[in-house]
């Protein structure tokens, strides 16, 4: 009875939040007037850089360094000390299994989101369709919804699907990797979409027209022209999604299968039991896994700039 009331209340709160998000989305959309930007040339124009000298350079360095020092270096040093104090004994089979779970979940979600965003954006570009555009906008709303609210909604959906599809069996979808992945995809699709969208803006319409005039259209255009030109955007979107999924805790806590742990879950479990020393290693691992995409991205951005 108490669970039912709490569940209803959480659903109402989740719906209210979704409405608020939707209103903000509509306001933003109307302010932009539904403009879509495409490029007619794919030339890269480099940013003009100004090298600072002396005192100005020092001030600029400090402004950039202080937040990184307080927000990143100090906590990482502290966490490393704690991890060292448990004599690295934490790096056992369980840790490896959690790390693998985290990596495979984040990579899987990244690939699904990037593929979905590519297909939707291609469909909108090739044959503009209001329904597909609305679907993309709706999916993008997911990023603004807290993981906890999303998880509550997803549990309800999975329970409904289990009842509808597997009424004679035990719970199948509720608490499965499937439900968890759907929640991740809804939560992070916007990240993948933004990268793919800007990738498409860099492909001029004359590329599509040339391809069509040479007899290549539809799926073959997606495979032979768009996908190779979107390589960087695709990789960026996978990496962005991965770095977000690695950190995701509330949805994972609620939707994960039994005995399935990610690094975020084990960090949370140890921290909630005040076992800070043990929590240090998975926390550092999250930072490291989250840093890999950032390093890749900054390398890619640097290499795409001339000189």
């Amino acid at each position: 009875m108490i669970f039912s009331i709490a569940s209803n209340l959480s659903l109402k709160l989740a719906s209210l939040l979704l409405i608020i998000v939707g209103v903000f989305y509509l306001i933003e959309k109307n302010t932009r007037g539904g403009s879509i930007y495409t490029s007619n040339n794919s030339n890269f124009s480099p940013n003009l850089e100004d090298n600072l000298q002396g005192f100005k350079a020092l001030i600029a360095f400090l402004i950039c360094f202080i937040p990184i020092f307080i927000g990143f270096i100090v906590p990482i040093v502290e966490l490393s000390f704690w991890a060292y104090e448990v004599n690295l004994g934490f790096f056992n089979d369980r840790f490896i299994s959690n790390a693998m779970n985290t990596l495979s979940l984040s990579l899987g979600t990244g690939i699904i989101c990037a593929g979905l965003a590519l297909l939707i954006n291609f469909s909108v570009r090739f044959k503009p369709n209001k329904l597909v555009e609305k679907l993309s906008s709706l999916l993008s709303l997911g990023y603004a919804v807290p993981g906890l609210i999303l998880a509550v909604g997803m549990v309800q959906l999975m329970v409904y699907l289990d009842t509808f599809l597997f009424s004679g069996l035990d719970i199948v979808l509720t608490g499965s990797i499937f439900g968890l992945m759907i929640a991740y995809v809804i939560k992070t699709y916007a990240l993948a979409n933004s990268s793919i969208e800007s990738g498409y803006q860099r492909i001029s319409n004359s590329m599509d027209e040339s391809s069509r005039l040479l007899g290549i259209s539809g799926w073959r255009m997606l495979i032979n022209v768009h996908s190779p030109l979107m390589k960087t955007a695709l990789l960026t979107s996978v990496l962005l999604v991965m770095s977000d999924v690695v950190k995701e805790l509330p949805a994972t806590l609620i939707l994960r299968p039994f005995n399935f742990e990610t690094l975020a879950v084990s960090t949370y479990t140890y921290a909630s039991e005040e076992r800070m020393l043990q929590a240090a290693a998975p926390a550092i691992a999250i930072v490291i896994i989250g840093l890999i995409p950032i390093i890749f991205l900054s390398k890619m951005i640097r290499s795409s700039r001339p000189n």
Partner: protein
Amino acid sequence: MDNLILEIKDLNHAYGESDLTIKDLNLNISVGERVSILGPSGCGKSTLLRLIAGLEKPNSGEIIKKAEVMTNHKIFIPPEKRNVGLVVQEKALFPHLSVYENICFGIHRNKDKNKIVFDLLELLKIDSLKNKYPHEISGGEQQRVALARSLAPNPDLLMLDEPFSALDEELRKSLYEEVSKVFSERNSSILLVTHDAYEAEVMTDKQLRMEKGNLI
């Protein structure tokens, strides 16, 4: 009239609610004929080529290629099924493909693919560039590659939209002669639009003038 490659009847086109860019236009081109349309910017020359290529839909009128209706009030054949080539002023080579791969792109299921590409590379004097990428070659070389790429699928009609206007005068003049020699050798049917009378004269047999959406 059996040797007509292109027939356009009473073609009308407007972008959205604006005035007609093409007004009651009629045009016939025979097989192997090289025709140019001269006219100032904005007179509808490029729009006409886009309509023939199937990149735009006209408001009314009929476009027939080799006795087959491409466009009328009922039928619209998409660009990928028209077998017409279009070379434009802007660089539209695929940046991720080499010169060789760019030229190969439009040749489908042809056993002589390699021979066709190597013949075109030789004909347009770009055989030394076959392994280079578009960003590694000059503007003039890029236009030669674009031309080779459009010729490779052996289109029924090749259309050129001010293809050399972005190049410097000296290079342009040398290309006019070389390219028209290539067209003669291949007996290609050509429709060129330009605002340069010299270009039209050197490259084509018949020159037409266009003003405010119609041929005069």
